[in-house]
């Protein structure tokens, strides 16, 4: 893309002005294009990037203000200086309000023009680099459909980048809800197979016989009820990617059949004689600990080594707490749109709880909680009381206490004292010291709360 830094577009319906301005600006070293009216100027803006548009206010078809509005509406970064015959303040205010960089009145002082243009172009440069930075930040915080800017996720993105275009099979591990299928999809999208099918099979969702039927398909009459032939997922994924989720839940026999299909790159449908050749990239996932699954003989070692050319381990959400606010925002936007709501954020207390909760269901659980909260919330900030019971009653770490708004000072004090005692293993002397009160005061307070020593 050519640099827009020193490109200027002129829009004026009078030829003598176009000729003069073009020559003046070219003398200054700018690359200049001239348009005869607003319409032509807009078309030019579509074709090329300009740092600045010098537009006459009054023009046929589209006047200066209308182009300005179009530019702002389309998020074009070109700066606009309006040249107006009227010296009226009203027009100037209107132009500035619409987002013009400045306005000049006719006849324009050539020296004024010379001095204002570099400033406008500099401003344009700032906008461009700002946009580039935004883009970079966006790239850092998300990768395909995965969201997260934590170092752990950056590692995952790097691995996907490295492995996507190879032919290597991949095994993805991670607790449920960490986004294993999203990683599989990202691998597919980044690979040269991206225009071919991505087929996902959840191996735990079918009984064994049906799973094999799903994977390999069957010929007509293979079994009672097999009225028509049916291609399996291996065939459907030809030239593409086959994603096997929860491979640890498959029987060892089925695993053996899959291993053979992967090794030979061919297989038979159920009840079929003909061998079908396939070219499939395998991505498998499991929420089991792989070592444990191998030891427990739940996963065939030979299949494991076939699949695990590259292993990608997804971190649980509680290990990347810094990504939680990012995820919350993302889900808020998503569910706001879906439910036609306009929830702006979370109360401090609510955010605090969500940051501390251990999220055993990971991102999926967080997503569900936000969806529920968006639906239930009646104010524009989600408050803790719309969170599910299991989260509100969750016993957070001993080292912190949660005091909901609306608690009386007495109740808060009581909780603080009891929890401190708990932390200090009921040692009152230590508890008093931690609380910063005398042992006598502590005894008094405990007496008032009805606890005797």
């Amino acid at each position: 893309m050519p640099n827009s830094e020193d490109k200027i577009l002129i829009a004026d319906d009078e030829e003598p002005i176009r000729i003069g301005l073009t020559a003046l600006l070219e003398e200054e070293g700018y690359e200049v294009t001239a348009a005869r009216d607003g319409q032509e100027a807009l078309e030019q803006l579509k074709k090329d990037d300009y740092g600045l548009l010098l537009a006459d206010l009054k023009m046929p078809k589209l006047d200066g203000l209308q182009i300005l509005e179009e530019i702002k509406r389309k998020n074009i970064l070109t700066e606009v200086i309006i040249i107006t015959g009227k010296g009226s303040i009203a027009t100037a205010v209107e132009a500035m309000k619409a987002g013009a960089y400045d306005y000049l009145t006719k006849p324009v002082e050539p020296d004024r023009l010379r001095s204002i243009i570099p400033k406008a172009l500099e401003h344009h440069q700032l906008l461009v680099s700002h946009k580039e930075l935004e883009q970079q930040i966006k790239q850092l915080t998300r990768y395909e459909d995965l969201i997260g800017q934590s170092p752990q996720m950056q590692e995952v993105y790097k691995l996907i980048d490295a492995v996507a275009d190879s032919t290597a099979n991949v095994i993805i591990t991670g607790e449920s809800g960490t986004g294993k299928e999203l990683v599989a999809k990202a691998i597919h999208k980044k690979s040269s197979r991206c225009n071919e099918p991505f087929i996902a099979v959840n191996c735990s969702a079918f009984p064994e016989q049906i799973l094999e039927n799903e994977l390999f398909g069957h010929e007509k009459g293979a079994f009672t009820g097999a009225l028509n032939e049916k291609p399996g997922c291996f065939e459907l994924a030809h030239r593409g990617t086959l994603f096997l989720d929860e491979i640890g839940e498959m029987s060892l026999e089925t695993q053996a059949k899959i291993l053979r299909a992967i090794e030979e790159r061919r297989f038979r449908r159920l009840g079929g004689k003909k061998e079908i050749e396939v070219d499939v990239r395998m991505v498998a996932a499991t929420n089991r600990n792989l070592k444990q699954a191998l030891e427990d003989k739940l996963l065939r070692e030979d299949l494991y080594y076939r699949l695990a050319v590259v292993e990608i381990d997804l971190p649980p959400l509680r290990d990347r707490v810094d990504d939680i606010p990012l995820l919350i925002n993302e889900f808020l936007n998503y569910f706001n749109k879906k439910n036609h709501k306009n929830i702006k954020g979370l109360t401090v207390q609510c955010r605090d709880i969500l940051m501390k909760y251990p999220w055993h269901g990971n991102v999926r659980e967080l997503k569900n909680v936000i969806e529920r909260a968006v639906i239930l919330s009646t104010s524009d900030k989600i408050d803790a009381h719309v969170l599910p019971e299991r989260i509100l009653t969750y016993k957070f770490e001993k080292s912190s206490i949660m005091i909901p708004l609306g608690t009386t000072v007495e109740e808060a004090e009581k909780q603080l004292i009891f929890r401190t005692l708990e932390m200090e293993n009921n040692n009152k002397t230590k508890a008093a010291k931690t609380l910063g009160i005398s042992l006598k005061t502590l005894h008094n307070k405990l007496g008032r709360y009805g606890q005797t020593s």
Partner: protein
Amino acid sequence: MDEKELVKSLEVFAHKIKNPIHSVVINLDVLKVKLQKQIKDQQTLKYLEIATSEVKRLSDIVAKYLDYLKKSDKEKAKVDLRKLLE
């Protein structure tokens, strides 16, 4: 043509004259920049300076005239005193 119409048409006239003035100012400036690079003869450039300052004078006259028209337009407008005082 009554007085109001006359003032209006003079305003339009003064406005219209700004476009050619604008273009003359710009084009004279281009000429100056280009000539300064090519000729060293100060006398030739002097004619250009004169033309430039004369256009500037013309432009000032038009601006002052427009100001005057606007003022007289305002001063002579009919005003409902009762409404103004309310």
